[in-house]
């Protein structure tokens, strides 16, 4: 069932002081996200990802269109009891400690004090924030540590749907791995995750469905495999071989040969050319490692 339904959402900003003109940040976005999945919201800088999230969080108001989260209009404050949000490059009250900040967030949701303390400790452990830092003021935190506190606060109310804006930003490789595992575990808990990112490898590993936004417009939406099938040429094949040198090889005229760390990669237009490549490889003393259809990476989809 859809937990997020966006219908024709449009946002114009006015820029300029004397000569005001409108800039369209989001253009007629319609989208539906089912529950229990990780949904990747992709786009280059300025594509409208953060604008969409801010609209959903009612930090800004739409020029036109509407959206429903968990069957409630985004203007309905009660809906916010059931969602979590991690802003991009989160800034929190730097005079508070991590523990105080989370307890404050829990207080807003009306958690009783014993429960508040327990939930705070559980979440700080879950985001793997070093226990020595729990009682340090946030002004002393690194970007990565703030990101972890941000993730913890987004989960303070045990939300059904979590909106994460660039959750991996500021994290080192170990941190990224840990956050990736955390996001996957949220799905295992039955939660829906809506994440904006431009780190494509994370999206590729984590997301069940993705939407690609380009200059404020929805370019593509679907399962990653679906999107690839839409754009892939089903006839194109790639052959990976070792033991042969590109200069010794005499492949068919339209083959694309490239050297990769794993060996020679030969891309051909169709299956009927496989035999010709195999003959050429044998002549050059090469050994076939794999033959498979060419798949576009998410990056290629993103760049199209």
């Amino acid at each position: 069932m859809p937990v997020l339904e966006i219908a024709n959402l449009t946002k114009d900003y006015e820029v300029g002081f004397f000569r005001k003109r409108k800039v369209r940040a989001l253009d007629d976005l319609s989208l539906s996200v089912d529950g229990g999945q990780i949904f990747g919201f992709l786009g280059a800088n300025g594509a409208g990802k953060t604008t969409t999230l801010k609209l959903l969080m009612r930090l800004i108001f739409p020029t036109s269109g509407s959206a429903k989260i968990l069957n409630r209009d985004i203007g309905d404050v009660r809906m916010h009891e059931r969602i979590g949000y991690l802003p991009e490059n989160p800034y929190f009250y730097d005079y508070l400690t991590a523990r105080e900040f989370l307890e404050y967030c829990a207080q807003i949701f009306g958690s009783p004090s014993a429960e508040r303390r327990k939930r705070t400790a559980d979440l700080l452990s879950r985001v793997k924030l070093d226990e020595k830092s729990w009682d340090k003021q946030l002004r002393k935190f690194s970007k990565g540590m703030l990101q972890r506190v941000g993730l913890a606060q987004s989960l303070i109310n045990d939300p059904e749907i979590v909106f994460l804006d660039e959750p991996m930003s500021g994290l080192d490789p170990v941190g990224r791995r840990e956050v990736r595992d955390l996001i996957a575990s949220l799905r295992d808990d039955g939660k829906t995750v809506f994440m904006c990112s431009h780190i494509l490898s994370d999206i590729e590993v984590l997301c069940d469905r993705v939407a690609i936004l380009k200059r404020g417009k929805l370019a593509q939406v679907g399962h990653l495999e679906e999107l690839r099938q839409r754009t892939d040429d089903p006839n194109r094949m790639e052959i990976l071989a070792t033991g042969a040198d590109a200069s010794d090889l005499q492949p068919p005229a339209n083959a694309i040969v490239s050297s990769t760390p794993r060996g020679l990669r030969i891309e051909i237009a169709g299956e009927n050319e496989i035999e010709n490549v195999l003959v050429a490889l044998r002549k050059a003393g090469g050994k076939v490692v794999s033959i498979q259809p060419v798949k576009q990476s998410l990056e290629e989809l993103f760049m199209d």
Partner: protein
Amino acid sequence: MDEQLRTLDAAQATKHHEESRPAGYGSLGRISAIARNAFREALRDRVLYNLVLFVLLLTGAAIFIGELSGGQERKIIVDLGLSAMLLFGVFIAIFVGVGLVYKEIERRTIYAIFSKPVGRGEFLVGKYLGLCFTLMVNVVVMGIGVSLALIYVSRGWDPLIPTIWPAVLLIYMQLMLLTAVALLFSSFSSPALSALLTFMIFIVGHFSADLKVLAVSLGSTSARWFFTALYYLLPNLSNYSFITPAAHGRTPAAGFVFANASYALVYITVILAAATLIFSRRNFK
């Protein structure tokens, strides 16, 4: 059937979340959480350090002025103490008040707060009450300071001690009014401009009775309307000045204090409602 199940699931999930909160929790609970945090912010930003300066000023006055003033030292202590209380309070109300909301927008701390079930009005009222509580602590500690200084110069109990407190209460009401005005300006303008406008309101507010006199004396109808409107629009702060009478041992009538409290309550409510209206339409880019 699917639709029915879906609605049922959503209803159950809502019920689960609503049941997990303590009974009676709502707007007041959220406002109180925000107010407590605003008070903590003021403490950690060392706003109350002004008390140290105040104590030094008063101690100096108690020790040195007594030597010079030939029996007027008690009056001077009250005059100086309450005037400093007003001045320090105005300084806090304006400079902390205009930053209350602006800082949150500038540092983007409100992003995480407004994604939670916090109404914009609740946020403003919470921040406002947090600063009012800070000011209350400030004036109470300063009031105690003035009382102790009186005990020191009188070498014992002083009959002026109970008479200063109604004046302290009126100063506090004035500071609450001014904080609301600062908050209103900061809901749509920059801190520097808000501070300037609030300071102007503070000054003009003390002369608002003169505006009425001016309106009556003017020949032109439109000018009369303008100044009368201005008189009703601006807070009448002159009613809250009771420092000099307090220094002479006079106390205001209960009816006067009650009328001023009612006026402050109505004025603050209107100002906060206007601030909420403006703030509710703001886009946080």
